[in-house]
């Protein structure tokens, strides 16, 4: 890291820590929580979709598995949600390893892999919709009891700091992937899988492991979501919307970069809020949202982070 990057990072961290103190309302803090949360989920997607190039349309399956795992343990079996949290991450990771092993063993790549993840999410949604222990389409309510020991908070600022910690952890994982041998293997697989195999990389193992890590992160996200809204049902937990959100923030920000999902989540969060504020007519806000999405892709084919990278490169060129 250059000294300037280190300074920027420190400034960003201080600003993020101080943000709830300056935000005008609980609503604004809530928006910030949702932006951070979608940055975290986007990073989970980015580990598989960006760093390893395994684009998934069904990443929600790990999120939903985690959400259901901790919610069932908590609401049905009476576990403390903090204790159920790591179990949710493990469950998400296990599903990630399982789907990864099945799909990669069958040699699925590109759009085939993307579509099979979508189908797995559908299978999980239908199962959750019909099974007894998930209470079917009714979903599971978590009893409101706002105590920190219960992973429920009266003020949104506490949730903000938990979400911030999640994002920090996800950035650390991405940073480690960037620098580690394992991350280099994933990058090699992304760029040219056959060449990576020829270099002696155990491609199957690396890709499966990466799905496990990504799934565990999304699973942990599921618990956070369930504890924030105190409710989970099959279409929230396994619906295609969350999958789309995860890949959107990551791709708009810049897939395969450490800060891409965070940048994408902030940008899309602002666009979403702005279009919502602009008009209350049903649907119109999202029309603008969709068009802005197309415009971003049209203007910035490498994601928003590409904008910064280009500027830095240009400046670097002039300095040298």
């Amino acid at each position, binding site marked *: 890291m250059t000294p300037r990057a280190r300074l920027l990072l420190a400034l960003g961290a201080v600003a993020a820590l101080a943000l709830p103190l300056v935000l005008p309302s609980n609503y604004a803090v809530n928006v910030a929580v949702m932006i951070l949360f979608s940055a975290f989920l986007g990073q989970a997607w980015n580990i598989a979709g960006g760093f390893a190039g395994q684009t998934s349309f069904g990443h929600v399956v790990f999120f939903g598995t985690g959400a259901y795992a901790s919610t069932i343990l908590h609401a049905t079996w009476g576990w403390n949600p903090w204790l159920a949290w790591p179990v949710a991450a493990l469950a998400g990771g296990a599903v990630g390893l399982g789907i990864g092993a099945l799909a990669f063993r069958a040699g699925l790549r590109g759009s085939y892999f993307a579509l099979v993840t979508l*189908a797995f999410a*559908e299978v999980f949604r239908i199962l959750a919709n019909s099974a007894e222990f998930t209470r079917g389409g009714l979903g599971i309510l978590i009893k409101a009891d706002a105590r920190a020991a219960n992973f429920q908070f009266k003020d949104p600022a506490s949730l903000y700091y938990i979400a911030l910690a999640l994002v920090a952890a996800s950035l650390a994982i991405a940073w480690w992937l960037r620098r580690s041998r394992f991350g280099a293997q994933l990058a090699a697989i992304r760029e040219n899988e056959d060449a990576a195999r020829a270099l002696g990389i155990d491609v199957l193992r690396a890709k499966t492991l990466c799905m496990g890590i990504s799934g565990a992160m999304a699973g942990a996200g599921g618990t956070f979501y369930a504890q924030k809204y105190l409710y989970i049902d099959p279409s929230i937990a396994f619906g295609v919307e969350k999958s789309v959100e995860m890949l959107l923030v990551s791709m708009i920000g810049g897939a395969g970069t450490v800060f891409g999902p965070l940048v994408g989540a902030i940008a899309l969060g602002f666009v979403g809020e702005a279009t919502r504020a602009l008009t209350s007519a049903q649907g119109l806000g999202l029309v603008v949202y969709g068009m802005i999405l197309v415009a971003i892709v049209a203007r910035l084919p490498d994601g928003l982070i590409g904008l910064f990278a280009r500027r830095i490169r240009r400046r670097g060129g002039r300095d040298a």
Partner: protein
Amino acid sequence: MPSIDILLAGIVNGLAAGAVYVLVAVGLTLIYGVLHIVNFAHGSLLMLAMYATYFLFAKAGVDPYAALPIVAGGAFALGYALYRGVIGRFAHGKDENILLITLGLSIALDNLALFLFTGDTQTIDVAHAQRMVEFGPLFLPRAKVIAFAAALAICAALGLWMARSDTGKAIRAVAKERQGARLVGIDVDHVFAVSYGIGIACLGAAACLLMPSFYVSPSSGHAFVLIAFTTVVLGGMGSFPGALAGGFAIGVIESLGGLLLGEQLGQIGISLAFILVLLLRPTGLFGARR
């Protein structure tokens, strides 16, 4: 276990439903086969075509079957313009960008429909399409019989056209070898836009055949997207016979799944069949070996 008669009825019903899946999937498979892109806006464009059929009937009194050439033609023009003006222009040659663009288009179109037409479901009542046709022990509404026959006819015509016409040959050439096609003087961007247009025109035809026995709402495209992807993969991406066989297979699987496992759990049949085919035979039933 239900009796043979009920099973038989389930299969016939499934085939009838599958006919429309075939048409939706043929468009998708053409777009995939030529452009190698996953068209996320497919469901939204189907929804738009269904609204067009609905308004032609409700406001102008045009019978949906008479409207078929109009809607299919309009859909072709829309598809061609969409590719030329938006998708091809903004993609910068990157597949991820096409995915994002079609996703953005689908969000915009769905919500535009929600804004303009509200979220209510709309149906049209075409009396002659509701009459029952007898097949031995089975009765089917005429709309489904027409859809079945028309889907077969449209697929056959499209297949023939792809095989014989110059444009069809150009499309196949571009699908096989982009660079080579450009070198022999084929306007590749035009061929892409034409293929996209034809894919969307298939949706227009599907919408006209669908409306007499279905409903439309801003989200009704979604129901078909996953099914269409499943059909395309099941048959082999880019393959017409595959889309045909896949569509009918999906219709039957869905119908029998509902019969044997119940309304809710029955939907699982499609996704499970999809996963099994992908894991066991990733190129699909008719797909070329990669």
